[in-house]
């Protein structure tokens, strides 16, 4: 039987994706352009046996999410720039304490309160470097309503599998866009749950990593008793000031992501095989990029698009491989400073020709804007 397709908003699809992935705890503080996610969760969580909480601010929201996750919940929150800034300190605890959780940052135009209802792609560096202390995070970026759903499931899967916070960062356009969408059947998309300890309770060490770089995680209230700490800690979770331990810990937090880089870095490509002009795009800009590439081909220019589905860790290998075949690289993005273009420059070196197309006035980048940079 054909599944019923509905016209669904990106934000709605992310909320539905979270429920599909097994999320049963949401804590947040409403902010445009993410509030539809909170509104949907406030209804559905009650029905599926989960908990929705509107907290006093975003600092408390991410804290409650982390607390619930350690109590066994798949937990998440959604926000936008101002709230995402407030979350950074506690997000660092999720990194340090290896707490699975998902944060959705529906990006809007800044700085500060900026243009609250207008899109931007200007949190790219904050996703990566927003917290103090050296660390690495995973950040994903959908371009369609279907991807909003699917990548939310992926975000939870990565969070659970690698015991990390994962950030999903659509821009306002994708968050508010409506497209035909039908929810996949249960089982159609794989759902991963965190690894639980199997040793006897007295031998459980919450930070002793297995060969895959990840330690099993118990839940408060289970037979396993454990400590999680924002302070530097050893394998047993207790404070540890030994420099050798700190070196192991900081490296370990990086390594568990680095060793799974190939699995984590997701890209999509359109017409890149013979492309002389390679567009590197993400989020809503991917859509304009594809339209521009098709138009360019009509005019006899071989253009293609590499979509960065995973923003962090950066797709170094994929960018380098495709750029080698192209003559020109174009990076359209909704920020002033070329946050992703800078990364592309880092990968390709100072000699490469990289054309930037930027908008930073809250207006979408059109296919025509990109086309101008191609021809």
């Amino acid at each position: 039987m054909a599944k019923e397709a509905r016209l669904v908003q990106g934000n709605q699809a992310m909320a539905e994706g979270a429920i599909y992935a097994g999320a049963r705890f949401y804590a947040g503080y409403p902010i445009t352009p993410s509030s539809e996610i909170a509104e949907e969760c406030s209804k559905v969580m009650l029905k599926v046996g989960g908990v929705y909480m509107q907290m006093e601010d975003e600092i408390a929201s991410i804290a409650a999410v982390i607390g619930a996750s350690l109590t066994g919940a798949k937990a998440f929150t959604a926000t936008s720039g101002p709230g995402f800034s407030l979350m950074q300190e506690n997000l660092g605890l999720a990194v340090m304490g290896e707490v699975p959780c998902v944060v959705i940052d529906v990006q809007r135009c800044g700085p500060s309160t900026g243009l609250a209802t207008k899109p931007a792609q200007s949190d790219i560096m904050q996703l990566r470097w927003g917290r103090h202390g050296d660390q690495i995070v995973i950040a994903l970026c959908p371009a369609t309503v279907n991807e909003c759903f699917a990548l939310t499931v992926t975000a939870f899967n990565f969070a659970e599998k690698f015991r990390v916070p994962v950030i999903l960062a659509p821009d306002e356009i994708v968050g508010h866009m409506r497209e035909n969408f039908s929810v996949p059947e249960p089982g159609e998309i794989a759902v991963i749950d965190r690894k639980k300890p199997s040793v006897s309770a007295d031998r459980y060490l919450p930070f002793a990593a297995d060969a895959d770089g990840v330690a099993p995680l118990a839940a408060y209230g289970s037979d396993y008793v454990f400590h999680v700490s924002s302070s530097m800690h050893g394998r047993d979770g207790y404070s540890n000031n030994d420099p050798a331990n700190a070196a192991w810990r900081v490296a370990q937090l990086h390594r568990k992501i680095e060793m799974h880089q190939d699995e984590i870095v997701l890209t999509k490509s359109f017409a890149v095989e013979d492309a002389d002009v390679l567009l590197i795009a993400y989020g809503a800009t991917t859509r304009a990029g594809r339209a521009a590439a098709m138009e360019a081909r009509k005019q006899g220019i071989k253009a293609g698009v590499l979509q960065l589905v995973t923003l962090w860790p950066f797709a170094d290998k994929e960018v380098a491989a495709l750029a080698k075949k192209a003559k020109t690289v174009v990076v359209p993005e909704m920020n002033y400073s070329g946050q992703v273009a800078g990364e592309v420059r880092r990968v390709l070196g100072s000699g490469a020709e990289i054309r930037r197309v930027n908008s930073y006035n809250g207006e979408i980048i059109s296919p025509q804007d990109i086309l101008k940079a191609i021809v």
Partner: protein
Amino acid sequence: MSHATGIRYLKDGVLPHMWCSGCGIGVMLGAMLRAFEELDYKNTDTVVVTGIGCTGKADDYLVTNALHTTHGRALAYATGIKAFNPSLHVVVLMGDGDSVTIGGNHFIHAARRNIDLTAIVIHNFNFGMTGGQVAGTTPGGRFTSTTAWGNPERDFDICALAEVAGANYVARETPYHGWELKERIKEALDKKGFSLVEVFSPCPTHFGKNNEMKQTREMLDWFRERGLPVERYRKLSAGEKKNHFPVGKLVDRDEPDFNARYEEIRARATAPEG
């Protein structure tokens, strides 16, 4: 009956603890662990959530579940734990800087929600851990490492704040009143809804030294002379009250807690449509 020692909740080999001699935090911790034992708390169903500061170091010594959080945010973490698993005993240990200076917003909202947490606040009139700076709980005129000529601001009454914000249970004790302190913590643990035990506590190293009470005894004398059982305190004139503070159980009520209200609302959401 033999007396509870609370030792079963203490980690082996971590003593002596890090707190200065004369500090009140150890007295609070001892009282809390004895209360745990008298209530027969299990390590598996107890989560101690700590903030950052001298008080926030307490989890280092415990074998219960623990979450050592960020400065000021312990109650928000604890809220997520309790909301998701209401069967857990969730106890939150914070300094006065933690709980009502940087974390004041979480404090009033946890009390407003009346979520079933037990908050124990060490009120030592300053930021102990970072060198004795002024806090939102340093009395006006007092000296700290950042108020060399006296504090121009006024202090919070933490208990009054919890009361007006909606806590079901509020008590204040001092290390001078060790047995009572344990009893209050027990009552607080047993109470459904948000409960607060505020512990006036000497910090001889900083606040005492800066305010001519370098000897722990002098701070304890201060508590003994000024702290009056609440029944006696309430009979004082407004003028006399200025020189005293009430100790004991200050608020005891049975408003429905967050989880109870939540399940009521859930019943509406899941009721078959008629």
